[in-house]
Structure formats: structure tokens, C-alpha cells
């Protein structure tokens, strides 16, 4: 297996009395796409947010690129982590251009570097350049999600965290973005962690799947492993409702 990019060491996180993640240890390998699959409330988003310090576990340690995460160091680390969420999370007061390029401008990138990276990303996600001065409210859901992916990839981060980015899209749009995502994977190898409740999507986009159930890892392995040897009824159910 390739190098570990994200390392969880016996992490526990609870909100109030409810334990979300329980003494979980996990290595997420570099350069491939890993899907974290589970039903709502299984803790998959929380697990993802521990990787960029949005959630700090009360017990255990998370490291990325072999460096332990703490509140101070994480700010620098985040520049190497792209992040996109369900519903896109675009800033409503900023245009498409400014949403995508905000952080690059704050980091004082050269104007032409910003411009060429922006154009490259629009092209990658088949977004019309005429959208760039528009505000998020005037975009379709699919367009918003693509812009959100552009923003996540603006700084060309080695790690991409995707929190159910395709869940809110209609099936047709989802199909199109899926194929764009696969094309992206074919061009470059980038460590990607995709959180989804859709096993079909996981199988299509990921090389490795982690099934989460009530804050624990139910099963971990390659897509084929899991499909051929589901560890429990729960995993099987996920396959059955996954649409494939």
C-alpha cells in the first residue's frame, strides 16, 4: 500500500453525551481516492473534518502528511487541503471568480498566475467563463458544486476532502460531474477523501472504501473486497440501496 496521508490514532469525539467517533484508528493512503461510506449519523463527516482541524478529537491524534494536527499548525496545513461540502458552501457575497480565487489573492499570488489557474479549473469542470462575474445565487446546483470544487482545487492542494459534494444534485447532473471527476483522476493522482452515503458513488469513484457504522469502522478494503465479501448485513444493505 502507498504512503499514509492521513493517520487517525485512537480518536474519540462526542457532542454532549452522544459519542460520534469511538476510539477509531485508520490510515488513509496517499495518491488514491478513498470513500468513507455510511448512513446519516455514522460519523463520516466528523471523521473528515478531523483531517482539516474543523473538528478536534477530545482523545487521540490525527496527523496529515506525517505531522500531528494542532490548532496552531492547522492553519498552514489547510492551504494544502482542498475542501468542498454538500450545497457547495459558496460565499453568497462574492462572485464566482472571487469565490474561487479569494485565498490565492490573500496569499498574494501573481495576477496572471491566478488568472491562468482559474481558467484552467473552469475548463476542467466545463464551466462557461461567462459565469465568472456571476453570484452563486444565480447558478444552478450543479454549477455551484463545480465552482466549489474549483475553489477547493485553486491552490492545487495535495489533499482533497469532499463532504458529500454530489449528494444534492439531480441524477443527470451527478452523472456528468462524476465523469468529470473520473477524468480528473485520470490526469493526475491526488489524495482524495470522499464522504458519501451512496455506495454506488463510492464504487464508481474510489479505489478504497471505508464503511462507517455508529462511529466505528465496519469494514475497510478495496471496492472489490467489500463487494465480494461484505462484513455484515449493514454493508450489504448499503450495496443494495446504493443503486448498483
Amino acid at each position: 500500500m502507498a504512503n499514509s496521508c492521513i493517520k487517525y490514532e485512537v480518536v474519540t469525539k462526542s457532542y454532549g453525551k452522544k459519542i460520534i467517533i469511538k476510539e477509531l484508528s485508520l490510515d488513509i493512503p496517499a495518491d488514491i481516492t478513498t470513500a468513507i461510506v455510511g448512513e446519516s449519523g455514522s460519523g463520516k463527516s466528523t471523521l473528515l473534518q478531523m483531517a482539516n482541524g474543523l473538528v478536534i478529537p477530545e482523545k487521540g491524534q490525527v496527523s496529515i502528511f506525517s505531522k500531528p494536527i494542532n490548532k496552531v499548525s492547522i492553519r498552514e496545513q489547510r492551504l494544502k487541503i482542498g475542501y468542498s461540502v454538500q450545497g457547495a458552501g459558496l460565499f453568497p457575497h462574492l462572485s464566482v471568480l472571487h469565490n474561487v480565487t479569494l485565498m490565492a489573492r490573500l496569499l498574494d499570488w501573481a495576477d496572471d498566475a491566478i488568472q491562468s489557474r482559474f481558467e484552467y479549473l473552469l475548463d476542467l469542470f466545463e464551466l462557461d467563463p461567462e459565469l465568472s462575474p456571476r453570484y452563486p445565487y444565480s447558478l444552478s446546483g450543479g454549477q455551484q458544486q463545480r465552482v466549489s470544487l474549483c475553489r477547493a482545487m485553486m491552490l492545487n492542494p495535495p489533499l482533497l476532502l469532499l463532504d458529500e459534494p454530489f449528494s444534492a444534485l439531480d441524477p443527470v447532473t451527478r452523472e456528468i460531474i462524476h465523469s468529470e471527476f473520473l477524468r480528473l483522476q485520470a490526469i493526475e493522482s491526488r489524495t482524495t477523501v470522499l464522504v458519501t452515503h451512496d455506495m454506488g458513488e463510492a464504487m464508481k469513484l474510489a479505489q478504497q472504501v471505508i464503511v462507517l457504522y455508529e462511529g466505528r469502522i465496519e469494514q475497510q478494503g478495496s471496492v472489490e473486497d467489500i463487494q465480494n465479501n461484505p462484513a455484515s448485513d449493514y454493508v450489504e444493505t448499503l450495496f443494495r440501496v446504493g443503486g448498483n
Partner: protein
Amino acid sequence: MLRIYLTNALLLALSTLLVLFSGAASSQATDSSRAYTIGSKNFNENYILGEIISQLLEDSGFTVDRNFGMSGTMVIYEALRTGEVDAYVEYSGTLAEVIFPGEGDSTPAELNQHLQSEGIEALQSFGFNNTYALAMKRDHAADLGVETVSELAAQENIDLGFSVEFLNRADGWLGLIENYGFTQQAIGMDHGLAYQAIDAGTIDATDAYSTDGDLELFDLIILRDDLNFFPQYYAVPLIHQNLDPQVKNILRQLEGRIDEERMRDLNGRVMLDGKSFAEVASEFLTEEKLFIQTTSAVTGSSIWSNIYQNTLVHLQLTIIALSLGCLVGLPLGVIIYRSKKLSRGMLYVAGLMQTIPSLALLALFIPIFGIGKTPAIIALFLYSLLPILRSTITALLTIDPVLKRAAEAIGMTRFQQLRFVLVPLALPNVLSGVKTAAIISIGTATLAAFIGAGGLGEPIVTGLALNNTDLILQGAIPAACLAIITEMLFDVLERALVKPHMLVGQLPS
């Protein structure tokens, strides 16, 4: 009517508070080169006497600041004691009963001794005795066969309405109950409004002053004080002991110049003939040949220039207060909004501030900040704090958590998150909070006139004292216009600063 009653009740409350706080005040040294501040209470006669003193000093080349229309004896007496006011006209009976309560009948010598210990000197009286009296409509009194206070006390179904100060004074209603055995209930109301009420038949009798210029206008008669209960109220200028002796000598010219009939006449010129205080004072000084310079005769200044001046002062008060409110409220909200405890605590404190009645707050500040603009601005600032703070905290707290997470996740520093995401997203809500604060300030600032801060409240206070609706409207209409214009300006500002799709209620989901 209830509002008037409440207002007066507040005035009473603040007078009480003032007594409690008077210990904190310190007196100020006087200086011959500075302007002299002349105060007046907020009723007709006292305005005229204040104006007479002011013009007399101005005629001799002194600069005079007029702090007229102050509300309640304790407010103005305290202002004199602390040196905020250099002189005003007080009444001997009021001095005895209000300033030195419970000390029985005081001789003028005893009074002066008390005053001296406070650094105050009473000059000789103007000459007239403006005593309290009970007044009734002439025909109504005749119908009931009432000529004396005793006969009124014997009436069963009568409604009594008194000025709040009278209602609570030992030499007023409380003493009447004790001496005449009144068993009827009495309600408190503004003195000017009481005459209207008696004219309309809402009340049967009210307190009056023997020099009231409008007794005749309302066809009122004064009931004979058959038990000789009411003390004497000779009008005396009260001044600071260390006032320039020259000033003292100038004011001494007024000793014994005005008898009761003369005072009723002067009062009537304002109340009945509609002249300004300045005009009547000027006429009096001219008639008495007290002016040294012939050029100083005053003619009435135009309504428009008065409104303009008052509006300027009003704007000054509200703009300074609102700016302070923003300067403190906005950063404070940004700093504390993350902490539930802190923001809840601050909102509680700011809310508490809001519940202190404006007049009480203004009065509380007199011992600390004196009278005039400073305490008014501080009070308005405190009132503006709650809406600004609350809207800032609410605006920041209600920002979609997904956006907050996104801002944090892409690697922005705390400051960058604030500057580029949180503040722009909070702006529409914050602006509407500042707008609310501005409009509250414009309304509340009208009360600042009670402590001599001027502004559009001044014609309102004077109009109330004179029972002059025109004058009240000269303050009320511009104040309402200011509020409307402010509302419109904020709409323009909002359109300039906030993109249309970001306006409140139109956030994309």
C-alpha cells in the same frame, strides 16, 4: 394623559435619585472671563425671569449661555450647586420646603445661612409672591358654591389634577390633605395641560400660581386659602457666592421691580399675546430703563432660524452618540459573539440600560457629568448600544455554519475570515441595527432639553410649559422628519454597501 403622568412620575423619581447622588458632586471655581450660564425652570414665568437676567448681563457685555427649561427643582438646584449653572430664579417657599425639607418654618436669615454653606447666595426678591393656589373655572365654582379651599375639601364628587411636584410636596397636596382634610383622590399631570383639562371639564380644580398669566384666559378663579396654609413664594435670584461682584451688582438692579400684577402682565404677554420670552424680557428691561445700550432690544427671531438651530443641535447630539455607539458596539459585538456567556451578559447589561427611563438616566448623570450636551450624549450613546450590539451579535451568530466552516477550511486566518466573510455577511443585519439605534436616538434626544442640552426637545418643553401647540409642533415635526430622512438615508447606504441579493431575507439557500 397617561404619558404625561408617567413623565412627571419619572421626573419625581429622578429628583429623588439626585438627592442620593448629590454627595458625589463637586463645585467648580468661577472665572470672570468665561461665559455665564443662566438657568431656568420649565414654566413660563421662570423662562421670562431667566431671560431678563440673561439680557441684563448681555447688555453689560457679558456672554451668556442659556440653559432654560430644566425640569424639577432638584435638577436645577443641583446644577447651581455644582457650578453648571451660575444663576437662576428660585422661590423662597420652594427653597424652604424642597431644599431643606422637614426643618419647619425657616426665616430668610436661616435660609441664607443654609445656602451659604452650599456656596450659594440668594439676592433680594423681585418683589412678587407667586404662591401656590387652587384654581377652578369661575362658573363651575359658582355652581358648586365654592369660594374657599375648605369648601372645596367638603365637596364629594370632584376630580383633582395637580402638577406632580405639587402632588408630592409637603406644602402642596400632602399639606392640603393634612390641613384641610381632603379625602378625594388626585392625579398628576403637566401644569400646562392641567389648564386644558380644567377647561374641558375633565378635572374640577388644579394647582395654580398667583401670577399665572392665563388664569384670566381660562376664566379661572383662585380659591381663598382660608386656613393660611400656603407658604410664601417670593422669587429670588440664586447665584454662586464667588460670582463676579460686578455681576451681582447688575442683578441687584432687579430687586423689588416686579409686583404680582406686573408679573401676571408679563406672563400674559407670553401666554396670551404669543410673544417670545426674549421679546417680553426686552420690553420689560426697556420699560424699566435698565438697558444701558439702546441697541440690545430684542425682536422675535424667526421660526425657521429657530428650527434650523434646534435641528443642528439635535443632529449633533444624535450623530456623536451614534458614532460612539458604533465605535464601541460593533467591535465589542465582534469580540464577544463567540462566547455565549459573554454575549448573553453584555446583552443583558445593555438591555438593562434600555429599561432605565430616559429622564431618570439623564438626571442620574447630572452629578457626574453636569447638565447640557455631555450627559445627553452619554445617555443617547448607552441607548444606542443595545440595538447595535444585539444586531452585531445576532448577525454574526446566524451566519450559515457551512459558510463559516468553508471560510475556516480554505485556510483563512481569523482576521481574514472576519474581514472577507463574516463582516460582509453580517452587514445587512448590522446596518438595520444601527438604523434602529439612530431612530431611537432621534426620538430620545428630544428629552435632552429637560437637562439643558437643547435640540428639538427645546420647543417641545417650552411648548408644554406654555400650553402652546404650535411650539410643540415646531419640535415634533422636524424630529419626525429627521427620523424619516434617517430611515431613507440608511436605505440608500444599504443599497450602496450591500448587493441586492444579500439583503435580509433574500439569502440564497
